[in-house]
């Protein structure tokens, strides 16, 4: 390479990042120390290096000062390595002649003593200067992007992402674990703050998914394995059987009528356990697809083999029902993936002091959503389990949220849905409704106005965390009631409030298998299990796995408008990938120096990607550059030192160590 030929000439650029770096690291003295480092011919400090004018400095110095190596001391390479590589490339130098020094995240933001911080920055800068001298020109390879997209999860996030992509002409596989799409939103009655009916706005989108030519919808199915990489993922989907063939079923539902069970006898999950269903059922009337499911745990034929099979008779010559159907496995190829696996509600039994599961009239908010829903188990009547209409209702906010004993985060939607339920309960029953809250959080369009409306409707608001719900009556007026004990922090009193019905506003949490899902897609997640976005502000739907995007509550609690916005963004990110046709890869692959390789085969079993093959004839190991992911495990293990790694060569790392410890 001509650009790298001759003497190494390094330019060192130190960023102030406004005061972010300069307030803690003495950038002037850091620049001065750069001047003393080997091969450094240009040293500059600048207010904002990532700005256009900052990048211009580098772009101009490269030809003018005949620089062939660049060191940028600024923020994390995860943030701006691509920016500065592009700047280097724009000046005609190979972009891999760049090394970054992280003096912001790793120094100025975490240390306070200016002298210590500056001295650490000098060490890291020296390491980078030494390292970059050993850099080589590298070429990126391009991998093509398969145009199909997998969307995992058929809640409102998955539905919206799938429709957006399909409307743009891309083929989408939408995989949903439940027998129907719709997710949690399908269980809600009204949506806050506009009180429009959830079903009215959701079901048309669900039907559109089913009808769309470009969407392959697999419900009652689960992704079980993901291999490959951005542009070329091989995905295995397990499709459970409903014992009803989707291609033959017409959705007449006559089989449901015909079932030997006259009444439902088994827990109806869609109605949050408040109703019962038959062994053959559809989750709810507008389910998509309109195909019943047989629950083998409940069906007489499966349990005893001695059913009259009236459902098959009812199906007649459509022949859609068969007890012999088995689960299937599908293998598909996609280029990108949108993960929209949603949330689960906090299990109220984990807060035993609120009496859920002990007192029948303590409900979770999700159960009350079903109670107020016209197509719910009580046809929209808010009644207690014994059929009474409650005269007083207490809504306990933040159950399982903002609590170190359960979940620490704010679930974001509970204040608003509690207000919504308060309104609906009052509207349906005329009951006195008490809200017990820590803070009312209504930051959203029209949210605060909704809160004001509730105040005018004379819903009671008591500021204080409820201590417990019991049926412990102190006097006859409390007899038969549920007693909420709470410290009213505005009045400065401990109060006992007897009510007929308690609603627990349970928080949102990651699904219990979130960690497994995280691993399967090679993403990262927080300790609690919400999937981590690549950057909280600037890459909110990307993950650390290229080509895998996030939408909805699997990334963190959010309401429907935010979920839909995020789903649209995830779809747009996938479209960018697909329409660009290919993606460049990091050239950090491992390779063998076959002259040195002794053929010991130590490396072969180490590679999880089977990228190393042993050439029997030559007795040498060779690494497939297309399948190597660049972890470097084989490099560290090679006894003869014949395996090397681009961008992470042994010499480069030894130089870093030397640089750090030179004045140790």
């Amino acid at each position, binding site marked *: 390479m001509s650009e790298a030929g001759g003497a190494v000439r390094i330019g060192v650029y130190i960023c102030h990042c406004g005061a972010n770096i300069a307030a803690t690291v003495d950038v002037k003295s850091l620049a001065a120390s750069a001047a003393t480092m080997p091969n450094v011919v240009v040293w500059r400090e600048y207010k904002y290096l990532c700005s256009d004018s900052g990048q211009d400095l580098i772009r101009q110095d490269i030809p003018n000062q005949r620089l062939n190596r660049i060191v940028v001391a600024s923020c*994390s390479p995860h943030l701006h390595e691509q920016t500065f590589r592009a700047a280097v490339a724009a000046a005609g130098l190979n972009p891999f002649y760049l090394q970054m020094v992280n003096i*912001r995240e790793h120094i100025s933001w975490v240390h306070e003593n200016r002298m*210590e911080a500056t001295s650490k920055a000098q060490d890291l800068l020296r390491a980078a200067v030494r390292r970059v001298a050993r850099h080589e020109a590298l070429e990126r390879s391009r991998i093509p992007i398969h145009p199909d997209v997998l969307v995992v999860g058929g809640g409102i996030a998955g539905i919206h992402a799938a429709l957006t992509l399909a409307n743009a002409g891309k083929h989408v596989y939408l995989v949903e674990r439940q027998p129907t799409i719709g997710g949690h939103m399908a269980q809600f009655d009204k949506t806050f703050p506009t009180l429009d009916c959830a079903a009215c706005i959701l079901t048309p989108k669900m039907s559109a998914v089913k009808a769309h030519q470009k969407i392959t919808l697999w419900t009652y199915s689960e992704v079980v394995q993901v291999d490959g990489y951005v542009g070329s993922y091989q995905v295995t989907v397990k499709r459970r059987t409903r014992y009803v063939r989707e291609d033959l079923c017409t959705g007449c539902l006559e089989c449901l009528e015909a079932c030997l069970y006259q009444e439902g006898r088994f827990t109806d999950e869609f109605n949050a356990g408040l109703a019962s269903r038959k062994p053959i059922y559809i989750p709810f009337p507008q389910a998509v697809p309109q195909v019943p499911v047989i629950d083998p745990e409940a069906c007489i034929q499966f349990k005893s083999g001695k059913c009259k099979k009236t459902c098959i008779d009812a199906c007649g010559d459509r022949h859609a029902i068969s007890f012999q159907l088995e689960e299937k496995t599908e293998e598909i190829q996609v280029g990108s993936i949108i993960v929209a696996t949603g949330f689960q509600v906090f299990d109220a039994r984990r807060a035993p002091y609120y009496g859920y599961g002990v007192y029948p009239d303590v409900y979770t908010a999700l159960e009350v959503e079903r109670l107020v829903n016209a197509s719910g188990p009580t046809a929209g009547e808010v009644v207690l389990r014994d059929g009474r209409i409650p005269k007083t209702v207490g809504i306990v906010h933040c159950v399982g949220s903002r609590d170190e004993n359960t979940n620490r985060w704010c679930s974001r939607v509970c204040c608003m849905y509690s207000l919504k339920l308060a309104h609906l309960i009052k509207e349906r029953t005329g009951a006195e409704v008490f809200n017990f809250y820590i803070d009312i959080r209504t930051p959203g369009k029209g949210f605060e106005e909704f809160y004001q409306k509730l105040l005018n409707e004379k819903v009671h608001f008591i500021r204080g965390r409820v201590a417990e719900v019991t049926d412990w009556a102190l006097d006859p007026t409390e007899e038969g009631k549920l007693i909420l004990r709470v410290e009213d922090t505005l009045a400065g009193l401990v109060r006992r409030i007897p009510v007929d019905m308690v609603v627990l506003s349970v928080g949102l949490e990651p699904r219990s298998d979130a960690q497994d899902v995280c691993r399967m897609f090679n993403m*990262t997640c927080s300790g609690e299990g919400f999937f981590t976005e690549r950057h909280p502000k600037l890459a909110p739907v990307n993950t650390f796995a290229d080509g895998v995007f996030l939408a909805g509550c699997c990334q963190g609690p959010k309401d429907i408008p935010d979920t839909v916005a995020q789903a649209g963004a995830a779809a747009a990110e996938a479209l960018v990938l697909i329409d660009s046709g290919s993606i460049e890869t990091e050239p950090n692959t491992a390779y063998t120096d076959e002259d040195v390789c002794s053929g010991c085969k130590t490396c072969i079993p180490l590679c999880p990607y089977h990228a190393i093959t042993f050439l029997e004839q030559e007795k040498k190991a060779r690494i497939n550059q297309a399948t190597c992911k660049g972890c470097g495990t084989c490099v560290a293990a090679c006894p003869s030192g014949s395996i090397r790694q681009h961008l992470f060569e042994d010499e480069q*790392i030894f130089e870093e160590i030397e640089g750090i410890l030179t004045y140790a």
Partner: protein
Amino acid sequence: MPEVFEPKIVAFFCNWCTYLAADLAGTSRIKHAPNARVIRVMCSGRVDPQFVLDAFAKGADGVLIGGCHPGDCHYQEGNYKALRRVALLRRLLKQMGIEEERFRLEWISAAEGERVKTVINDMVEKLRALGPRVQPVRKEVA
């Protein structure tokens, strides 16, 4: 000789978990001891025992390797490889007279910014208690 001994730690952090955790410590402004110098590698499995030996040979007071938690490796199992390698390396270091506390392998996920602080501060504290490494070269100088 400064009043308080400030040990110098060479830290090898994997790109996907521990390096990001250190970044997160930054964005969350979690202050910690400035004694560690981070070298980024793609995976803790990339850390060649030679790097560790070289760091000690050149005067590091401690070496820290940070990787993803078991089962969470971005490259499926590089951290397991690191773990196995480290066991062997520990014995070697012991034979060379390098105290156990000077060499650590820690699993720190991308979400554990707080843990970066805990691990580094704890290591600094232990190294301070241990004092500078006694090396023949240093003795001559002193």
